[in-house]
């Protein structure tokens, strides 16, 4: 049985009470639905599975030790993602050289208009394709190739389905700024994933390759 959002909230509030009363087991139940969210958030910042896992674990432990400071006006999931995001950013700053980003922001400035480069007519991707490891890898590589500010906004909003408002809170930027980053991120990804880069997208489906000029 799936719970409505308000049932989820009520259930979480109960679990939080139990944890604060000393029931450790309840904490795992509270966090379990958001494991993937925590992992993907950490991954969007550090871009490698081992570090993302380590950060995810640290974030969960931190959430446990700070649970009594959680205020019910925000969603538990948003709070958890916020802790994870901060933890990941802190880790990145703490100078582990392999975690440093290459500075590719110059190519992806937020000034001016974004001009699509590819006008291929892209048929919907059959969902079964995502069962293939290499396709998932292609999508993940394309996401990884975005500059950090675009990648983080895209992962929070489009991968994790947080609202624009939640995304803006977590990233500490304005809502219009979130929208601009999302817009850039989506169009860049479209250019990178457009059919023709990987013909397996459209295998067996005819598509028309067209360019404006």
């Amino acid at each position, binding site marked *: 049985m799936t719970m409505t959002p308000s049932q989820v909230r009520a259930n979480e509030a109960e679990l939080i009470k139990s944890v604060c009363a000393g029931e*450790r087991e309840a*904490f*795992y139940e509270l*966090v*379990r639905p958001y*494991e*993937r969210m925590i*992992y*993907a958030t950490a*991954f969007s910042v550090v871009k490698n*599975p081992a570090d993302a*896992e380590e950060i*995810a*674990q640290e974030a*969960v*432990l931190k959430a*446990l030790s700070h649970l009594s400071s959680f205020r019910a006006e925000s969603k538990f999931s948003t709070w958890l993602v916020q802790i994870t995001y901060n933890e990941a950013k802190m880790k990145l700053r703490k100078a582990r050289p392999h975690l440093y980003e290459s500075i590719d922001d110059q190519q992806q400035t937020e000034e001016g*208009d*974004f*001009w*699509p480069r*590819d*006008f*291929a*007519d*892209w*048929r*919907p*991707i059959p*969902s079964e394709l*995502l*069962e293939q490891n290499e396709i*998932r890898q292609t*999508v*993940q590589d394309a*996401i990884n190739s975005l500059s950090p500010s675009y990648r983080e906004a*895209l*992962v929070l909003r*489009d*991968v994790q*389905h947080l609202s*624009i408002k939640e995304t803006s809170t977590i990233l500490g930027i304005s809502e219009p700024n979130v*929208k601009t980053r*999302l*817009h850039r991120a*989506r*169009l860049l*990804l*479209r250019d990178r*994933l*457009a059919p023709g880069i990987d013909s397996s997208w459209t295998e067996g489906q005819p598509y028309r390759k*067209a360019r*404006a000029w």
Partner: protein
Amino acid sequence: MATIEISCIEVWREISNYLEDEISPEMRERMESHFKVCAHCTAVLDGTRNVVSLVGDGRVFQMPNGFSKRLYSKLQKLP
């Protein structure tokens, strides 16, 4: 009343907001009449929509094997 025409560049600027439904009804109408006649912008729209649904699929970000188990045992080991 006729819809005011819109250029491709203006359409690209608003594509993401169009998908989020964060535009005025007038802008939506102008964009929709543009899509009817512009194959390129329609391709950009379809592709962007595909990107959003593709990355939104839970299968893209898979947790490493044993992730939950290790997390759980970390919690178990707390003093």
